[in-house]
């Protein structure tokens, strides 16, 4: 059986976990076995609906204490559930929680791990999973040598697949180990699309000249329904909050569309965004290195081009 860990934030199932579910369902089909989801904590979503992403069965351990991440507790429960279900592959989303939990689960299951996988395994001769390495500049094909396998699939690399299923939900009754950490304070970023979950991202660099000029970028993001991001110099100068910084030392993202405005495209910035499906670069310098990594480029003044693009998007949306 393939077991997919369905992660939550604020009692809502993450999009990256639904992608992991679709990945797990496709993998189960490839291996000719069953696929189940594992949900920990209390979530507001209807769990039977995970069938629409490919789950045949949902194991649910309903306990409020599991709503926040405690790697020691979560990994122990997931490993036990995987053993009880005779899982041969355990799938995680390679998001903040998945990155933290999957390696610990792999140790507990004595399973080989591929973390940051980018596609389904090749099972013709062994079990070989491709993952991104060198910050997106290369891929490695990695053979997992152990009977049980753990895979953490990159966000936004395996699309959602719609199934006409309703999953059966089974409440689990497993003992919950004592907490190893105590949460004392929560600082939520309200009302924004989290960058790593966003499929459209609009990002600004030093070319915008100052925080007072961010209005044109925010208007474009609003017209598109996109999340906003920025380059390192921008967050270092406190023009924008640090959680918007994408790049080698910031957040690595892989949206469907990344629009870079006034960002030259230093190699450290590209390392954070080069897995984006489509890259649009708007820069007045035709020699900006970012154009070499772009799919579409506009050589022009951002202060004219960006408002015009916003107008064109709104026009397209009103005609749709």
């Amino acid at each position, binding site marked *: 059986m393939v077991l997919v860990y369905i992660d939550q934030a604020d009692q809502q199932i993450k999009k990256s976990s639904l992608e992991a579910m679709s990945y797990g369902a496709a993998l189960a089909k490839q291996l000719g076995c069953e696929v189940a989801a594992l949900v920990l904590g209390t979530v507001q979503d209807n769990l039977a609906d995970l069938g629409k992403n490919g789950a045949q069965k949902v194991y649910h351990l309903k306990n409020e204490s599991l709503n*926040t991440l*405690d*790697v020691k507790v979560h990994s122990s429960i997931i490993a036990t559930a995987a053993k009880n279900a005779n899982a041969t592959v355990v799938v995680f989303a390679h*998001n*903040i*929680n998945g*990155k*933290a939990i*999957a*390696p*610990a689960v*792999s*140790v*507990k299951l004595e399973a*080989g*791990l*591929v*973390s*940051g996988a980018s596609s389904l395994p090749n099972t013709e001769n062994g079990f070989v999973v491709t*993952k991104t*390495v*060198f*910050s997106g*500049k*290369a*891929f*490695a094909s*990695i*053979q997992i*040598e*152990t009977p049980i396998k753990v895979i953490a699939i990159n966000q936004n690399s395996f699309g959602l697949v719609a199934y006409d299923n309703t999953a059966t939900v089974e409440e689990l009754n497993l003992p919950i180990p004592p907490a*190893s*950490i105590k949460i*004392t*304070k*929560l*600082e939520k*970023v309200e009302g924004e699309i*989290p960058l790593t979950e966003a*499929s459209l991202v609009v990002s600004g660099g030093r070319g915008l000249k100052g925080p007072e000029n961010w209005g044109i970028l925010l208007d474009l993001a609003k017209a598109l329904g996109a999340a906003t991001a920025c380059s390192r110099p921008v967050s270092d100068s406190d023009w924008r909050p*640090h*959680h918007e910084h994408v790049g*080698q*030392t910031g957040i690595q993202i892989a949206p*469907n569309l990344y629009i870079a405005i006034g960002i030259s495209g230093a190699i450290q910035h590209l*390392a954070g965004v080069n897995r984006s499906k*489509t890259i649009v*670069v708007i820069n007045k310098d035709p020699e900006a290195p970012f154009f*070499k990594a*772009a799919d*579409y*480029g*506009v*050589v*022009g003044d951002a202060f*004219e*081009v960006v408002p*015009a*693009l916003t107008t*064109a998007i709104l026009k397209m949306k009103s005609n749709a």
Partner: protein
Amino acid sequence: MKILVCISKTPDTTAKIAFTEGNTKFDENGVQWIINPYDEWYALVKAIELKEKDPSTIIHLVTVGMADAEPIIRKALALGGDEAIRINSNSNDSFNVAKQIATVAKEGSYDIIFTGKETIDYNSASIGSMLSAILDMPFVSLANKLDLNENTAIVRREIESGEETCEVNLPVVISCQKGMAEQRIPNMRGIMAARTKPLKVVEPIEVSATTSIKKFDTPAAKSGVKLVDPANMDELVRLLKEEAKVI
């Protein structure tokens, strides 16, 4: 207080990424090696900051690598740290690496084990979590702030919807990222002192590999940028909708 900092040797962020031997091996030709930035800027410097607050703190560095990793370890010792341990293995299987470090960690009975949030070569972000499971310790990932209160660490970490602060009893494994500490460069006194600091080499324990790398590939080059007239944003919208199909 005893701290273990895990250090990895990685190619410089601007290094050309190429492969040899039928795309099965990273081409080290002309590559500059650095301390993995997350290990250096955040994990190691945080340990040094803690030692500056409490000089009785002992910092050990550990790396899994061959003799060619020693210049990197000396550079780390020049920043700070009392002694280093090199485990003489070239394994790139995360589980194997974690098992080797765990063996050193058990012997040293450390209060805090720091790692960077990930290495910039294999990007697996696995060692800290694996260590915590092998050593049966709590694990806090993506930490960007840490204070100590006797036997408790107060750690701020990144979560999906923002940040949260948690309290955890020592010993603990913590993976570090931006915000944790201020980047520094080694000074001359540190460089001189590093030459005589102990660097112990230990042989690896036997661990059967859980994974092996079969081959590397580089992504297909972009077919070239399509330039759009800045006066015609309707055309860009059309391309994004009809050609790229992303909006």
